[in-house]
Structure formats: C-alpha cells, structure tokens
C-alpha cells in the first residue's frame, strides 16, 4: 500500500514504525543520491555517505518536522547543509581517485548516453555552481523558487537571478538541439 509522505511520517512519529520510514527512504533515495552526486562533483561514495547521513539526521529530527514544507524540501535542505558543512571542513573536497574509480565502474548503459544527454551535461558544466544547483532544484526536481531558496539558504531574488541566467545560457548552448526537435 502506497501511503503519502504525511501518513508515513505520522506513523514514524506516533507509532515508532520504522518500516514506514523505510518506505520514505526507498521513495527518495535515487533522487537524493543523484542530486548529491552532482553537488559532490561526481564523487559517488561521498554522495551516498552524505545521503545516508541526511536520512538518519532527518529520522532523528522527524518529531520536530512541522509539515510547513514538503518532506522532500526538508530532506534536501538537511542534505545540502551536510554537504556544504563537509566541504567547509574538507577542502579540497574532490577525491579525484574516487571519481575515476566510480566512473570506471559505470555500467554499459550509463556509458551509452545519447548525444543530447552528453551535450546537456556539458552545457550544465558551463554554468556556475549556484546556477547549476538552482536549475537542478527548480527545473529538474520541480521545487519552487521559494523552496530552492530555502534549500540553498539564499535570498529568493538571488535564486531567481541564478535560474534566469542559467536558463538564458542553456537556451543559447542547446539552441541547435532545440531547432532539430522543432524542425523534426
């Protein structure tokens, strides 16, 4: 039975039902781990560790979760805080060997990305990091500007500006692909 986030959280908090929390973990693990991999510059092991920490921290703090925001927004905020805090303590943050190892272990399917996906990835790399994060949260994950601002701990206007600038850059960089789609 697929319960919504609110019901699962109520079961965890009121009944101490850890299986309900396992459902939440399964529901969000892929999205969160993927987002954190981007935030950790492709270091998959670090991203997974951070995601694990975020889920554990969220579980402990769940009784204090008031439900003003969506669970996913709250979870992302915790995860982003953890990564930023880790980065502050551990600069330089990227373990290039770990990145290379992880990339070497990629499956054939992952390696066989289509040209569009590769170019999109390259275009995303042209963005500044805050722009990349803002686009990822707003246009990929579907968070509102307000939610993204709360996750990134930035003023709303700054997030909007990042999104607008990133959108304009991507629009230029991916123009050829769009024209191909439009012209068929």
């Amino acid at each position, binding site marked *: 039975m697929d319960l919504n986030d609110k019901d699962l959280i109520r079961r965890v908090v009121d009944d101490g039902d850890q299986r309900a929390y396992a459902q939440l973990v399964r529901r969000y693990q892929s999205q969160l781990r993927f987002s954190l991999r981007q935030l950790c510059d492709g270091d998959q092991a670090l991203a997974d560790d951070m995601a694990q920490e975020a889920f554990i921290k969220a579980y402990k703090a769940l009784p204090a979760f008031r439900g003003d925001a969506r669970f996913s927004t709250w979870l992302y905020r915790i995860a982003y805080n953890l990564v930023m805090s880790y980065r502050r303590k551990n600069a330089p943050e990227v373990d290039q060997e770990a990145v290379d190892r992880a990339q070497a272990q990629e499956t054939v*399917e992952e390696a066989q990305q289509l040209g569009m996906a590769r170019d999109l990835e390259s275009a995303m790399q042209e963005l500044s990091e805050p722009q990349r994060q803002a686009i990822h949260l707003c246009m990929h994950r579907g968070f509102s500007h307000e939610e993204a601002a709360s996750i990134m701990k930035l003023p709303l206007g700054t997030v909007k500006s990042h999104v607008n600038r990133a959108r304009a850059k991507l629009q230029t960089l991916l123009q050829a692909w769009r024209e191909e789609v439009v012209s068929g």
Partner: protein
Amino acid sequence: MDKFEHSAREGVQGFGTLSEAQLRNSDPDFDAWLGQQLQFSEPYLDDDGFCDQVMERLPAPTARSERRVTRTQYAAVAMASTIVAWQFPFGEVLAEAARQSISLYSLVGIGLLSSLAAMFGGIVAARR
C-alpha cells in the same frame, strides 16, 4: 558534441552582454523541453542495499511509542471482538443447538475457545 561546441563558441561571447530583458524573457516551451531533457538524462539509482544500511543505523524506536502501538493493537482487537459479539445471533444459535441436542456446556466451551483463538490470531496479525 559538435552542436554543443558550435553553440558554446557563440554563446560564451554573448553571456556577458545578456540584457535584463533577455534574462527575464522566460520561454515556457524551452522550460518544458529542458525539464524533459533533464528528467530523461537522470538514471534511476538502484537501492543496492542503501535502504538497509540506513535502517541499520537508525536509533531504536522509543519504548513509549512501542507501548502505544501495543495498546492500540489491543484496543483494536477488543473493539472488533465486541462488534462480532454484538452482531452474533446467540439466541438463534442457542435455540438451534437445543434443537440439535448439543450440550449447552460444550457449546459455550467451543464459543470461548473460538473467541480466544480469534483474539490471539488478531493480536499476532496486528503485531506483524
């Protein structure tokens, strides 16, 4: 990659001169297209034991919440038994039993045993 490199060469020169009007000029079609492409390029990451690792590291639920669960389960079973007892046609069954010459004592015994079995089963099922 040609498409990207060609656009990138042109684009890099233009980024510094993007006007505020250009920046604010949101194209809903482009937004929808970009959203689709971003979704398409995201692989689903298999759980691969991730969830189990998280669950192993969670602190145990508090005794208070466990007690609350048990109380809730017993209350649910008691309520269900009450409803069954309320709806059960004891009079008709007793009359039928008398007609069939079944001893009243054995009937009560069977009823008690059935109720106990049903309650025990209910508690076990609820705890699972």
